[in-house]
């Protein structure tokens, strides 16, 4: 009782600050400060569409679970409230951007909101056929088997993007439970969410040895908590050969058999064919988009490239909405190219970011664009050299699909010789006509850390400026946003001799 007045007093004292933040992230504030009418209309359109999707999910919860059930869901999964900040994220991404560039980013984010809706429905509305899978394994096969699936690390990736501070309590929970603090913060966040009971259980777990030790090792813990059967796929170390492909395909076939034994799912090869066709279509579109990005200045950049890939390739490649987004992105890029309209009028420098994106500061490239005219052309989570899947037989489909998994982001970079890591970087450097390379030097990523020495020397040999930006993937306490910006400033000022853009 004694503390109540003090708490109320503290809340009142914080009001101006909260009020200021609420105003800064509000729609009217954006409209007042928007660069032009077109940008204002674009932003407003997607702001409302996002609200509509959020409302739709709320309604579906109320219908499916009942009002009491819906409230209980929210209490049990408080992180759902963090997802409401999507319009704030759109604002951060959209700052200073206009025209088709702005539209591409707002559109990308909106499709992710819709996709998240669908993922949440799978998570909460289908417990009788829900499978939990590790994030670098696509949901394709589960969906082809008529199962619902969610990637356990998914929210660990999404939450800090929405709110930089949202992963901290989960990280602390994991560390307090005894997880090594130097482990990657994504498995720590995931472990913390599971410890707090914030992730729904399923019928089965499917994990793998991807991408790293902490991620793979955490599944022993998850298995004991969820107490459900688990299947683990194992990607060989040397995977660019037929022998390794054959081994992995056998593993995937066993996984399918195992899922048929432990879940109500049944493999539908026609459904899987459709999914593979969708993937092929996405691939075609993405390659067309990347081709256009080779032009200087680029017609689109940044979130239109990496965020679109992150979600639509890894979470929902089988959705028509994913293909439609990429069709629209290609259209927007083409229109910009035809009309000589660059994504950003101040494009002076181009870069790629290697290693996982800056989750809790994903709008750093918005800042870099406005400050130095630096555009992000691609990143290691998106960049690939996949070929289309041969959809003629189940065997050929499995082979093509398996290659996508084995040669996927982080997977191909953490397996096999160093060339698997390095060659990609220099290929991308050439492909996109880059001026520099950024390495997102996540403190918890030992595989990435241990390549910096060689990379530094190789870049020096080639005369490529290299920024190794120290940060933590999901925990902003390790390296603050200010510190990250300062690292960029030091690099751009001293190495690139870049002048800042006058506003």
């Amino acid at each position, binding site marked *: 009782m004694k503390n109540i007045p003090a708490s109320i007093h503290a809340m009142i004292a914080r009001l101006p600050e909260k009020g200021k933040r609420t105003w800064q992230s509000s729609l009217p504030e954006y409209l007042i400060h928007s660069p032009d009418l077109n940008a204002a209309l674009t932003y407003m359109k997607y702001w409302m569409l996002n609200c509509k999707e959020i409302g739709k999910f709320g309604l579906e919860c109320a219908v499916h679970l009942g009002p009491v059930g819906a409230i209980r869901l929210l209490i049990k999964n408080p992180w759902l409230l963090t997802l409401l900040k999507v319009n704030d994220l759109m604002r951060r991404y959209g700052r200073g951007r206009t025209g088709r560039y702005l539209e591409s980013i707002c559109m990308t984010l909106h499709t992710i909101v819709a996709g998240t809706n669908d993922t949440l429905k799978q998570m909460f509305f289908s417990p009788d056929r829900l499978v939990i899978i590790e994030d670098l394994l696509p949901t394709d096969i589960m969906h082809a088997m008529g199962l619902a699936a969610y990637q356990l690390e998914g929210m660990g990736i999404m939450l800090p993007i929405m709110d930089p501070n949202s992963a901290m309590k989960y990280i602390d929970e994991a560390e307090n439970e005894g997880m090594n603090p130097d482990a990657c913060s994504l*498995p720590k966040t995931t472990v913390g969410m599971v410890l707090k009971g914030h992730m729904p259980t399923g019928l089965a777990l499917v994990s793998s040895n991807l991408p790293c030790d902490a991620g793979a090792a955490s599944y022993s813990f998850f298995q004991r908590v969820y107490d459900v059967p688990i299947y683990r796929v194992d990607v060989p170390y040397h995977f660019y050969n037929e022998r390794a492909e054959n081994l992995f395909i056998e593993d995937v076939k066993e996984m399918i058999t195992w899922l048929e034994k432990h879940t109500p799912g049944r493999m539908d090869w026609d459904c899987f064919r459709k999914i593979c066709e969708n993937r092929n279509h996405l691939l075609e579109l993405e390659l067309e988009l990347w081709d256009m990005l080779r032009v200087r200045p680029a017609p689109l950049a940044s979130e239109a490239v990496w965020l679109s890939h992150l979600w639509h390739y890894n979470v929902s490649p089988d959705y028509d909405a994913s293909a439609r987004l990429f069709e629209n992105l290609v259209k927007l890029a083409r229109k910009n190219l035809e009309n000589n309209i660059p994504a950003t009028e101040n494009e002076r420098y181009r870069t790629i970011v290697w290693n996982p994106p800056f989750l809790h500061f994903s709008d750093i490239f918005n800042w870099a664009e406005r400050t130095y005219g630096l555009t992000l052309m691609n990143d290691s989570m998106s960049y690939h050299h996949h070929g289309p899947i041969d959809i003629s037989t189940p065997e050929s489909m499995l082979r093509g699909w398996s290659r996508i998994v084995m040669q996927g982001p982080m997977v191909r970079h953490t397996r096999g010789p160093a060339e698997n890591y390095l060659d990609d970087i220099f290929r991308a450097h050439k492909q996109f006509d880059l001026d520099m390379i950024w390495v997102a030097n996540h403190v918890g990523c030992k595989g990435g850390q241990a390549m*910096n020495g060689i990379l530094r020397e190789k870049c020096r040999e080639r005369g490529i400026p290299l920024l190794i930006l120290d940060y933590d993937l999901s925990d902003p306490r390790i390296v603050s946003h200010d510190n990250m910006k300062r690292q960029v400033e030091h690099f751009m000022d001293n190495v690139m001799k870049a002048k800042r853009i006058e506003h």
Partner: protein
Amino acid sequence: MSTEKTKIIKLFQELLENPQNRLVEQAAESGRIPIGYACSFVPEPLLMADRLFPVRLHATGVAGTELADNYLSSLLCSYTRSILEFAMDDRYDCIRGWVFVPSCAHMQRFIDNFDYLKKPGFCHVIDVPRKVSAVTLAWQTEELHILAKKLSSHFGMDMSDASLMKAIGEWNRFCGVMRQIGDIRKRPNPSITGAEFQSVVMASLASPKDLILPHLEALYSEIEQEEGAGKYRARLMVVGGHLHDPEFIDIIESQGGLVVADRFCTGSIPGFRPVHVNGDPVRAMAEHSFEKTLCPRMMEDFDTRLKTIIDTVREYHVDGIVLEIIKFCDLWGVDAMPLVSALRKQGIPVLKLEREYRLGGEGQLRTRVQAFIESMGK
């Protein structure tokens, strides 16, 4: 402790002072070929065929890793940094070939950086799967056949079945004596301490087996009938990853905890099982490589690891477990979370210690172990 035993133990301790001890140099000078390796998944008998002999890489006595840190980063396992440091310093200049396993991210990057910096003439990576099944056993067998072929073609070695059977016989003899020595530690008053045993194990793994075997046999005959002279308050088991410096165990034992069992990479459990050949010796070695390790990299073996530790606690009458984890090790760091909880649920006291590969923080270590033993009521 008898004078003879003291002399033999001192010999092992001296052999451990150098990453390439005099037995390695002696064998190399006589035309034999030392092959360096760093992981327990490497089948030693395969590297004992013909004139080959395996040398377990260690960096006991490493003073710092300033050179290696430029490449491997100071946020990586200090074992990999230490052996890279030694490699960059040419401390392994006798070694003619290298066989590695990408057991973890740290080891993988060690391999990458080692290959980049030293450009070794022979460097092979065995792609050991992370789970055991009929399919992966067949894969592992094929991997070892590939290695055998490469060793044969590069060094001109006889890797025929007969040669491999001879090597397996030699390995089994070595294991037999090691197990006999290890079994002495099950006794209420063992005549060999944990630190002494660790010196023996590490020195033996880093030496040609035929040259170290007489010393092992001599040691066994000395201690077989002896009773231990030390007074200890508790019997401990050490569990964890790479532990090469017996000083670490010595410090634990200085506080009254006798280390009677070791479940770490170069420990006795399950480390010294013989290879049972039933047909193809390479397949037998593949099976053996899975059986003789209990590493958290093996994704499906958590329950087996847990059970083995619990069974060892019962068999060796262990009072408590010291779980030592090299800082930045994700495999053990993450695995420890459910492991410690499961062990404590079984009523087994556990002390979890984070450490570096080279001994440091001795005062803290002493205090922690002392408090742990007291907390067990010993």
